[in-house]
């Protein structure tokens, strides 16, 4: 481990903003402002597993979906599927398709929200957009697409005015985390305006997608459409009008993806070509995908596979038995690398140093270290797109090919800060297009009078002692839930989530997690504004949103809104 030397200095970023949840990053930089070591630390106890112990296995889905407000459906589905696996319940085709329609719509929504609302301000200077020439901006937009989304001169003028009003009203708080004026902001005022225009449009588009998802997910905000054995949305599924509503939204969303998201991404790729070619934000090059989302002919949308150290031509098979977790550097009791079925979640908090910094020689994170064959793995869109391309996956290969041809990016380039974002944009397009294929499959299936959506079972007759798991690709990467059942109750539960893979701390061998590896080697233009580190971390789409949700109004004079106590209490 690197010891601080007289010349090195430590930079602490806490919290890393504009992500879901609470993450702290500490880095050491040398006299040339190059990062020599990094520590990523999850700052909130994830004890969700413990709350599931002792419960009825049919309840786990509705509880597990509360783990996260962003990945609600992913956890819901993984949890239900793991219980189905434990009981060997095969769900009907229709149920599988409906589950896929919800999951895939979430890929598109998540990627849009990640890029525009959680990440783009690392590249887009809002203040600069105010000085853009709208006529010029419209012309530039047309250079990146024949029919750019909402980019007439008038459209852009209206957005610029809206932003100006917002800024004039002193309401820039929403964007307050940008390091504006930083030397690493490379887009022109016009390019910034085009991005901000799409930032606003994406707000509407993502809202419409969540309404489309609700068509299959039920009426209330929290979905209740999945149950062990199938789905409950029978009536909606068979209603052509509802299917049409769903498709209408997806069609509009795809127009946005193709005419806004991808062109904007190409614009950023062009502006940061040097950074991409220099491999900024490159990790170990260990990529993993579990594949999945099969079509009727058995061909999966995502290919499965494992790549080691950027050796793209040596594709290994993905085998879930190689997944372990350890807690040597995490604030839990550690029994060495353990199968998730046998793992425990017993806190062993060793605190921070007296000055509030991480104890970097010991335990320093609430995130565990998942490993595959003992190695850290990067999961997510970059892994899926690289593996899909190399495996010649029928539905991914052509999209990647086209993107690489138009941008000049190579496969290795996707293993970088910008590359991860580019892979995510390509994936949004692939997945959105494939939704139409899944819908025709559903309609076809229903035509043959297969209206089954639930596999009947008698709970009392199911085995009292069993175990199961679900491993599925979700927007941020590979998600797996493991459940052990004893006396018909949950006896152990573990969720190994995408952010755990990517944000993992070091392991007993001192090998860095993917975030840490991506950060080491970065050169900071200004150590006081470590924008390069934020970009690298954000490129993974971090989600640690098992966080609490309290509305934070500290420092605000709120006394006048205090409600006097009423009634006969206290």
């Amino acid at each position, binding site marked *: 481990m690197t010891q601080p030397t007289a010349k090195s200095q430590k930079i602490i970023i806490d919290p890393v903003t504009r992500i879901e949840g609470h993450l702290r990053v500490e880095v050491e930089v040398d006299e040339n402002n190059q990062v020599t070591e990094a520590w990523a630390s999850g700052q909130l106890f994830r004890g969700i597993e413990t709350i599931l112990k002792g419960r009825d296995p049919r309840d786990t889905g*509705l509880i597990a979906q509360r*783990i996260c407000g962003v990945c*609600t459906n992913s956890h819901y589905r993984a949890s239900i599927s793991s219980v189905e696996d434990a009981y060997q319940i095969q769900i009907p085709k229709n149920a599988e398709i409906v589950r896929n329609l919800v999951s895939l719509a979430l890929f598109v929504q998540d990627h849009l929200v990640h890029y525009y*609302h*959680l990440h783009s301000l690392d590249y887009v200077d809002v203040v600069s957009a105010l000085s853009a020439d709208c006529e010029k901006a419209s012309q530039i937009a047309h250079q990146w697409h024949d029919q750019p989304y909402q980019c007439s001169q008038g459209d852009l003028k209206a957005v610029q005015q809206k932003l100006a009003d*917002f800024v004039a009203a002193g309401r820039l708080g929403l964007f307050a985390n940008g390091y504006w004026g930083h030397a690493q902001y490379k887009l022109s005022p016009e390019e910034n305006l085009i991005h901000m225009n799409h930032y606003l449009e994406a707000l509407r588009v993502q809202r419409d997608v969540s309404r489309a998802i609700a068509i299959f997910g039920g009426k209330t905000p929290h979905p209740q459409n999945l149950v062990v054995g199938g789905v409950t949305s029978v009536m909606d599924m068979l209603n052509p009008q509802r299917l049409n509503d769903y498709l209408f939204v997806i069609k509009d969303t795809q127009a946005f993806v193709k005419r806004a998201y991808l062109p904007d991404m190409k614009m950023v790729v062009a502006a940061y070509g040097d950074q991409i070619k220099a491999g900024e934000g490159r990790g170990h090059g260990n990529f993993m995908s579990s594949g999945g989302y099969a079509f009727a002919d058995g061909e999966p949308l995502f290919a499965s596979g494992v790549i080691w150290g950027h050796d793209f031509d040596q594709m290994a098979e993905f085998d879930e038995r190689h997944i372990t977790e350890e807690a040597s550097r995490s604030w839990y009791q550690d029994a060495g690398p353990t199968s998730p079925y046998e793992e425990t979640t017993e806190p062993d908090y060793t605190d921070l140093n007296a000055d509030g910094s991480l104890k970097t020689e010991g335990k320093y994170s609430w995130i565990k270290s998942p490993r595959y064959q003992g190695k850290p793995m990067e999961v997510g869109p970059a892994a899926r797109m690289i593996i899909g391309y190399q495996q010649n996956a029928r539905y991914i290969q052509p999209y990647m090919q086209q993107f690489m041809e138009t941008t000049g990016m190579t496969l290795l380039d996707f293993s970088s800060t910008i590359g991860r974002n580019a892979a995510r944009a390509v994936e949004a397009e692939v997945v959105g297009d494939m939704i139409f294929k899944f819908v025709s499959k559903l309609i076809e299936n229903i035509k043959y009078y297969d209206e089954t959506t639930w596999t009947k079972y008698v709970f009392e007759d199911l085995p009292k002692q069993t175990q199961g798991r679900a491993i599925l690709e979700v927007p941020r990467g590979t998600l797996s839930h493991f459940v052990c059942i004893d006396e018909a109750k949950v006896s152990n539960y573990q969720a190994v989530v995408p952010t755990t893979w990517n944000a993992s701390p070091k392991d007993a061998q001192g090998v860095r997690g993917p975030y840490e590896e991506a950060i080491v080697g970065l050169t900071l233009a200004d150590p006081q504004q470590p924008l390069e580190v934020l970009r690298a971390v954000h490129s993974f789409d971090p989600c640690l949103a098992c966080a*609490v949700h309290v*509305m934070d109004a500290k420092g605000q004079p709120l006394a006048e809104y205090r409600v006097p106590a009423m009634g006969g209490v206290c």
Partner: protein
Amino acid sequence: MLKAPVQTAVIGVGNILFCDDGLGVYASQVLAKNYDFSPAVDVLDGGTLGMNLLSYFQRYERVIVLDAISVSDDSPPGTVYSMPATALQAMGAYRQTAHEVEVLQTLEMGALAGGMADIQIVAMVPEDIESVKMGLTDSVETHLPNLIESILQQLAQWSITATPKPSPHALTQVVRGYQTLSTVNESTF
């Protein structure tokens, strides 16, 4: 898209897995189980949905958001605050926290996007939002009727009358309902 026929919603937000953080969710269900409203009100469990709440903020004319609130004065746990969202937004209440895409940010993004409901925040100071535990602390549970009363007062200001249902549900029943869900979910068939 069209506005929903029901023009008013009460949305409870928070994470029921973290003790008092779920107070808004529990309060919403206490309200739904114990009152009928005229004109109708949609009472929703908004849980941890964050940015997905935007859809609901734009669909209704009026929305009450129920949440836990963290304030810096000496208000003890159980203290209730009721304020228009615009009042809180005008203060620029954005700390640089990692709870970035939370209710306040969603409100602000909504303001930028336009078409937002008239939103009132009715919130309570929690005692424990760290324990991984379903259920509320005594101080929050004891004061929950004050929160309910504040909601009813706000609804009254919007000329909505609340009539108690014949057989009341206690908070403990609502909390238990979230802990034993399987019976509920099978009855949905």
